[in-house]
């Protein structure tokens, strides 16, 4: 068993993080002092359950381009839209409005016509974002290229025109991958395959044909003739979280953590409910649990379950809750639920 020196600082018994590379598009880190299921749940939740905004409904008024309406609609859906501070946007299904409103949707319109002889390229920057939205960045097409163009939507020849309006909604990648905040999450452990979780196929020489990953530098290679350790478990996980552009990479991790915590808190609540406290609980509706609960809105990295004192999400009113006084918030004046 090898112990990581990172355990020495800070919260020495809990998860330990070491960031090896980061910029505004990705963050690479090593997670240690946790087990495989813990790391894998974080990976899964970052891929599939962190909410973002994406175009979901498209109303085509004019489309004389060579692309079919649904083809263009699909392309529009895949354009990353700024999803920072997504908490300020409701899920349309939970919103008080009839169909859609500024609290749960962002409207984007597009109108382009080619009048010149050259082929006209229509880019994401040509989308006009409606003003009725929770803040002035949510739903903006993400533009990171040096020319400030954004994703290419379609090309128009002389005389062709496209005119449409789009409704962008909040959603998660379990419904459609366009809502994924990540373009990829790299996940590796045991780069030397000491645990034999992989059975590497080879032609002549496995070491030759399976070049070591860059993470192999962080771990000791197996010594010559080292016996197989049957009790060894993976303990260090290499993450490479790459943002699609809609949420900053570090926030993807924080949002992912928050989503798992909400899921777990939902279970605690569900289990507590069976214990004779069936008093008019509406129950979680969205994957983010409780809609409209002010207790869930936090600023920055503090989780709703953190040590934020009295108003925690499940500290809540009466001491009669099944989970009573917990380390996550004692007494407190009613939180989210």
């Amino acid at each position: 068993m090898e112990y990581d020196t990172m355990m020495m600082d800070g919260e020495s018994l809990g998860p330990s993080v070491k960031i090896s590379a980061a910029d505004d598009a990705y963050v690479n880190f090593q997670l240690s002092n946790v087990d495989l299921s813990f790391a894998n749940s974080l990976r899964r939740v970052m891929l599939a359950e962190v909410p973002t905004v994406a175009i979901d409904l498209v109303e085509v008024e004019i489309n004389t381009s060579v692309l079919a309406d649904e083809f263009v609609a699909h392309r529009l859906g895949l354009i990353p839209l700024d999803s920072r501070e997504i908490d300020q946007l409701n899920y349309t299904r939970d919103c008080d409005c009839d169909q859609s409103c500024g609290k749960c949707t962002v409207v984007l319109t597009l109108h382009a016509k080619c009048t010149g002889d050259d082929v006209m390229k229509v880019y994401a920057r040509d989308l006009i974002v409606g003003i009725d939205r929770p803040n002035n960045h949510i739903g903006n097409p993400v533009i990171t290229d040096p020319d400030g163009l954004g994703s290419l939507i379609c090309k128009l020849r002389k005389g062709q025109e496209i005119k449409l309006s789009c409704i962008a909604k909040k959603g998660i990648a379990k419904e459609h991958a366009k809502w994924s905040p990540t373009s990829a999450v790299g996940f590796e452990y045991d780069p030397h395959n000491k645990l034999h979780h992989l059975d590497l196929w080879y032609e002549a020489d496995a070491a030759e044909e399976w070049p070591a990953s860059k993470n192999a530098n962080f771990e000791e290679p197996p010594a010559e003739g080292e016996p197989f350790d049957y009790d060894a478990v993976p303990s260090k996980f290499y993450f490479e979280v790459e943002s699609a552009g809609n949420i900053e990479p570090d926030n993807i991790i924080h949002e992912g953590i928050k989503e798992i915590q909400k899921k777990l808190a939902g279970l605690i609540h569900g289990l507590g409910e069976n214990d004779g406290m069936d008093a008019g609980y509406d129950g979680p509706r969205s994957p983010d649990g409780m809609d409209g609960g002010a207790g869930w809105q936090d600023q920055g990295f503090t989780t709703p379950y953190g040590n934020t004192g009295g108003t925690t999400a499940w500290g809540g009113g009466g001491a009669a809750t099944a989970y009573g006084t917990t380390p996550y918030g004692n007494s407190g004046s009613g939180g989210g639920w």
Partner: protein
Amino acid sequence: MSNNKHFNEPDDPFELFLVNEGDGEKKITEKPFAGTSNTSDFILLKEDHTLGNLLAEHLKQEPRVLMAGYKVGHPNVPEVLIRLQTDGTISPREILIDVCKQLIASYGQLGREFTREYELRRMVAAGEQENGGR
């Protein structure tokens, strides 16, 4: 319900993750299992391996738990079953709540640890940039 739907019926876009409370569905239900003592099955609706594996693995690490396991019965059916047997000093329900709380705390700790490392790194990067400019 999702498993006996006609193929021509439109899909419910939320069927993977939204508990349908109108139909009396509950996120989690406990069913005592008669075969062995102190054993319960927990049925989690609209969940998958993310929670199933996490909870089963962490339940196994509890000394008072004799047996814990989970299954996702069919890949197209978003339901998880967790079977849990304790040694009798605590009920399965209580230990499951305990483990959930521990995990929430651990993930919270991870979040704080990540923030600390990330900010530290940013400060170092900013410092280097400043020095490089001179």
